[in-house]
């Protein structure tokens, strides 16, 4: 099977893997929200230390981390370039034609890129350390209050877990289809962009027919067992928060406290740092 990139589950035994999926989802959301409040480069440096520590505790190798970052590299560069070129405020450094590069523009572009980078890294911690099943169970459990207003949460969760379950299956199938068509002499890496898109048709049609066939079969199989989303289904794995989850909450709380202090108490630690360095010199 081909290597799957962005955010694939990386199975190993680590404290982060053992955390309750619900806790991990909540903490990831908190992290992602507060990343947007980080005001200073000192703050980003601390974030870098924080997320690196999380990766290390989670025993996720550098390679997996870089892979998740590689996926958004283009977006990062593109966004940073736009910000640099079209941010209007601040002291003008370069002014040529329609392009005006300002000091604030560069500052903003770098910060935005860092934000996105750390965001993706944080999100990939969740998907790298949580199996798809745990993830759906966690989401279902977190959304269960919505059942009170008659939203079929379990059905959504089932649809989601089926989707996640069949991604690798369909990937494998795609591989086989590609091989079968390659064996008939079709090539996927020659010709212009139009030829390349045309070459995909012999892959997409069998893939979709097979996906439809599989979905009918699965629906029949569910029906044959009288499956329906009854209220009191029990689970094989019952999620229970442990002391690990408490620790995780406190660590995240400390990180968030730092960000809040940085933003609202110190109004950005960069200025303080500069002053501090100056006073030493």
């Amino acid at each position, binding site marked *: 099977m081909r290597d799957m990139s962005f955010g694939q589950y*990386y199975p190993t035994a680590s404290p982060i893997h053992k955390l309750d999926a619900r806790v991990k989802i909540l903490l990831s959301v908190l992290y992602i929200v507060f990343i947007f409040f980080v005001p200073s480069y000192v703050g980003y440096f601390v974030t870098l230390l924080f997320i690196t520590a999380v990766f290390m505790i989670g025993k996720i190798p550098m390679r997996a981390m870089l892979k998740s970052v590689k996926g958004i590299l283009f977006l990062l560069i593109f966004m940073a370039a736009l910000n640099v070129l079209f941010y209007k405020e601040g002291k003008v450094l370069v002014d040529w034609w329609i392009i005006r590069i300002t000091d604030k523009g560069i500052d903003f572009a770098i910060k935005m890129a860092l934000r996105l980078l750390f965001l993706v890294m944080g999100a990939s911690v969740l998907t790298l350390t949580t199996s798809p099943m745990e993830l759906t169970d966690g989401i279902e459990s977190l959304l269960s209050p919505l059942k009170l207003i008659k939203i079929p949460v379990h059905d959504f969760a089932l649809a989601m877990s089926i989707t996640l379950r069949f991604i690798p299956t369909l990937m494998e199938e795609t591989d086989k289809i590609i091989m079968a*068509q390659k064996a*008939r002499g*079709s090539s996927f890496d020659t010709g212009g962009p139009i030829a390349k898109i045309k070459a995909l048709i012999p892959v997409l049609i069998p893939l979709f*027919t097979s996906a439809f*066939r599989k979905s009918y079969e699965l629906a029949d199989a569910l029906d044959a067992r009288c499956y329906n989303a009854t209220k009191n289904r029990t689970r094989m794995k019952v999620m229970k928060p442990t002391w690990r989850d408490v620790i995780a909450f406190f660590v995240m709380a400390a990180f968030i406290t730092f960000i809040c202090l940085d933003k609202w108490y110190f109004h950005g630690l960069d200025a303080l740092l500069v002053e501090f360095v100056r006073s030493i010199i």
Partner: protein
Amino acid sequence: MSITVKNLSFTYSRKTPYEKAALKDVDLVVNDGDFVGIIGHTGSGKSTFLQHINGLIRVEEGEIEVFDIRMTNKRRPKVDLKRLRSEVGMVFQYPEYQLFEESVEKDIAFGAKNLGMAKEKISDAVKEAMEMVGLDYETYRKRSPFDLSGGEKRRVAIAGVIVMKPKILILDEPTAGLDPEGKNSILTLITRLKENFCPTIIVVSHDIDEITRYATRIVVFDGGKIAYDVPMSELFEKEDELRKMGLEIPLAVRVRNRLRERGIDLGKDVVNVETLIGAAIKRYALKDSKTNENSGGPNGVICGEVQERVCIESDNSVYIDAGFEGGDGI
């Protein structure tokens, strides 16, 4: 020599937790005109091996030579994949994986078109391929490949490969999921292809009885290695070893072994029903004609000394029956 494979090794998902060695140091020579049957348990590496021969997987370690096309782990000189695939045709297990066009004719033409054949030549080649696999050109050419039966789909899939006129044909489980009749007709088709079209054939199968009826040579894969590549009569002496690999020996050989336990030796050369019948006839032909009034049927043989009767039916099925009530094919 059609195919020469030397020290071929391959590992899936190298350097990840999913890492799995699929092939370890495989050597194999396939000669022109061979009908090779490849057997092995799921995950024994047989599919990975065959995909290498067709250039679908890049060689990591070792080398493969198909006619004069050499494949190694070096990127240069570039392997002429188009030519390789026109020399080696590969039919995958599920025809659903390759059928995509709106009509049978167009679908079969896909391979020929990819090889850059001239237009007039393509329609001739399609016609020939369809006739070869036993699909009437006029009846089937306009039909949608998705509306066909399982056996017909498989025929279209085979036609879609032989339209490229390969000299070697590889078939992965060509009869999986078909009913007995469909199985027989596909196997007959494969033998016909070997006689008239592609001189060298490699077939992967789970069904040892089926494969021994047709193949002239059996190669056993186990744990990413070739476990046995010996003459069939020798191979089936290793019943216990094969069972450990999750493989059975052919029914005919089991019958031979049971008879041997009871003191009837039909000799070493029994590998399939045909040779079993042959050996039995050789042993009993003379006795048979004078002692047994109830022997009958075209292939019928009676083994007089045993309590159980070995029944060999004319449709090549074999069974041992203690209380058989006479009739055809004892």
